[in-house]
């Protein structure tokens, strides 16, 4: 009997613990979650179509260091558009893809209704054939995107002239509405990497830069994307776990560039990335003036409005950055952009003093602003050193509210543009949102000299 009691403390010590405190967590599960939820209808696979109305207002800067040539930016615009992305499988490895946007627009400077009211953007239309596992052949208008950075992609060689009429300065959103390039593309993917080759033929001549008043209605604008023979070869390979660099070789006209992308994971919350491209090329001012003369935007015999580096030499483009997600689920991107062909502080000084040097010669202001418009059309920074920061917060403060803020700063003069965006998902098919942006900086600075000082936009989206 006494032996029995000797064992009792031992038995009690190894009894399982009744974790009553752990059970209090069960009280946090709502009653509604105890039964099967109400199921939502599934979206049609291969389709993403939505209708959006965007109303925007622009606040002009009262005085400009360099007068802006006509046409002036619109003070308000309303745009109603149908955005469509569809794909169809035809069998035998064949797929057809279409992506486009049909716009109805009204602006203070466009008669309504008129030819300018309707505009259709054919972004993509191509056939894809998969003859074997991992091998694809594509033919048609294709949007080929390269690069790993958020703010500026030096290796995204097909970005030039592809953005038609932006509603935002957010580079991520700009990529959603850009024209593809007519091309033939082949891609082979295997377990350890991939290789892609693309050829885009020249089918038309280069044209002048578009303004908001002369955008064509149904013209596919191949002059934007296929005004020169273009070739791209890119390859990526997994060299280590989590490390798969990409190398690119691009040729257009008489210009060849090489590039590379690399990303690396840093712990559970951060990603580091670097994107570089380089090649023998002219400086931005030289290139812009050449293009202006070639397309008739600048008189052939007109003198250059400012001095520039005429050397054709190897120039670099770099985008290096870090993304970090906080415990509160805000994702930050911080980047530095280097565009060696861009304007230096001395170039900017020359830009602002051109009129005083040359006198009020007609066309000088137009030529000066053409240089800037050319850089924007090419989706390049205009200055050599730029900083970029972006923050994205899903379910900010309340569920279904997404907030995004970004700023791009010219590190040479401290001027910049800032934008804040809010989108609220009213339901699975309705979204309402808005954005506000403003430029800041001295009167004789990069962003402080722009004709638009601020802008607001409200939008309503219905997914179909």
């Amino acid at each position, binding site marked *: 009997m006494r*032996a029995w009691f000797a064992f009792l403390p031992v*038995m009690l010590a*190894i009894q*399982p*613990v009744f*974790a009553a405190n*752990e*059970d209090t*967590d*069960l009280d*946090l*599960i*709502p009653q*509604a*979650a105890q039964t099967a*939820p*109400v*199921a939502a209808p*599934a*979206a049609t*696979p*291969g389709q*993403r179509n*939505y209708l959006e109305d965007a109303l925007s207002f622009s606040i002009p800067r009262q005085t400009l260091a360099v007068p802006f040539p006509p046409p002036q930016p619109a003070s308000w615009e309303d745009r109603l558009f149908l955005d469509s*992305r569809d*794909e169809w499988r035809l069998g035998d490895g064949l797929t057809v893809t279409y992506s486009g946007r049909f716009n109805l627009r009204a602006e203070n400077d466009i008669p309504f209704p008129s030819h300018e009211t309707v505009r259709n953007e054919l972004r993509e239309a191509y056939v894809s054939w998969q003859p074997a*596992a991992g091998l*694809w052949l594509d033919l048609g208008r294709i*949007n080929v*995107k390269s*690069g*790993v950075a*958020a703010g500026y992609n030096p290796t995204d060689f097909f970005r030039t002239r592809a953005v038609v009429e932006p509603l935002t300065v957010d580079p*991520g959103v700009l*990529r*959603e509405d850009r024209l593809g390039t007519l091309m033939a593309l082949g891609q082979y*993917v*295997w*377990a350890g*990497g*991939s290789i*892609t080759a693309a050829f885009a033929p020249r089918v038309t001549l280069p044209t002048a830069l578009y303004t908001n008043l002369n955008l064509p209605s149904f013209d596919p604008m191949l002059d934007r994307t296929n005004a020169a023979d273009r070739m791209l070869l890119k390859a990526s390979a997994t060299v280590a776990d*989590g490390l*798969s660099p990409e190398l690119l070789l691009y040729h257009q006209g008489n210009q060849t560039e090489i590039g590379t992308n690399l*990303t690396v*994971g840093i712990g*559970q*919350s951060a*990603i580091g990335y670097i994107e570089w491209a380089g090649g023998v090329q002219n400086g931005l001012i030289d290139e812009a003036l050449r293009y202006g003369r070639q397309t008739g935007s600048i008189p052939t015999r007109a003198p250059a409005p400012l001095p520039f580096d005429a050397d054709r030499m190897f120039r670099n483009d770099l985008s290096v950055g870090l*993304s970090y*997600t906080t*415990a*509160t*689920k805000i*994702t930050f991107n911080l980047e530095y952009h280097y565009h060696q062909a861009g304007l230096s502080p001395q170039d900017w000084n020359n830009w602002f003093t051109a009129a005083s040097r040359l006198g009020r010669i007609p066309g000088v202001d137009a030529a000066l602003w053409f240089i800037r418009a050319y850089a924007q059309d090419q989706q390049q920074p205009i200055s050599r050193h730029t900083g970029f920061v972006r923050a994205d917060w*899903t*379910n900010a403060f309340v*569920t*279904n509210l997404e907030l995004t803020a970004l700023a791009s700063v010219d590190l040479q003069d401290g001027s910049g543009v800032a934008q804040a965006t809010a989108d609220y998902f009213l339901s*699975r098919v309705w979204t309402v949102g808005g954005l506000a942006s403003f430029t800041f900086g001295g009167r004789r600075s990069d962003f402080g000299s722009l004709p638009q000082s601020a802008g607001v936009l409200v939008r309503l989206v219905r997914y179909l």
Partner: protein
Amino acid sequence: MFRAWFAAVLLLAGTLPAAAQTPREIIAAADRVRNPGQPFRTTNTLTEYVGGKQKDQDQIVVYAKEDPATHQFRNVVRYVEPPRDAGKIALLDGKSLWFYDPASKASVRISPQQRLIGQASIGDVLTVNFVVDYAGTLLGNETISDAERQKRDCWHLDMKAVSDTATYDRVEYWIEHDSFHPIKAKFYADSGRLMKILYYRGYQERLGALRPSEAVIIDAVDSTLVTTISFGDLRFQDVPETWFQRDTLPRLRAE
């Protein structure tokens, strides 16, 4: 005296697990309960509750395949619902996590902590073997209630992340004796903050074993936020190796 001694031994035997297991073996067995041994796909429905009311619903299709070298799963996640997210794809291949948006045709590398779908981090919805990402310590035996408030005798383990791809720095894990069914988990950030509480429930016969058909995730930061994940349409499916290359993401078609 002998009868007393014998009765004590029987009583002791009833309180001990059927067989002594190392923490690693316990976690690996629980992984086999959650994850089939062959490549598979599952259609997961994530339902969000705010303040006790159903608010949103997202649907994703997950394709998972174990890497024979690392024994960790590689995942391709395709968004199906809501329409604004339809067609987006996330890829986990070893240490790399990529996100593809068909709207911009851009593939962006993201961290496991990045939130992409409602309250859940992308790491919450991926198929993973905990035994690869975490090193466990057995804290003891506990009896806790499962999501249906049934008492379960469990091993209580403390798991510390040993891999950069682990979404959380530390996990507390309750696994039922003998069946190795995961019952509950608590997920902690590297700051030590409790982030999520998860219950597995709805065990059903699926692909050759009793597996949970649902998970309930309670946001420990804001406990009014609860997400349920229903693991539907679970079936074996071969997943080509090329699917785990980021350059394939624009090519993946809905099935």
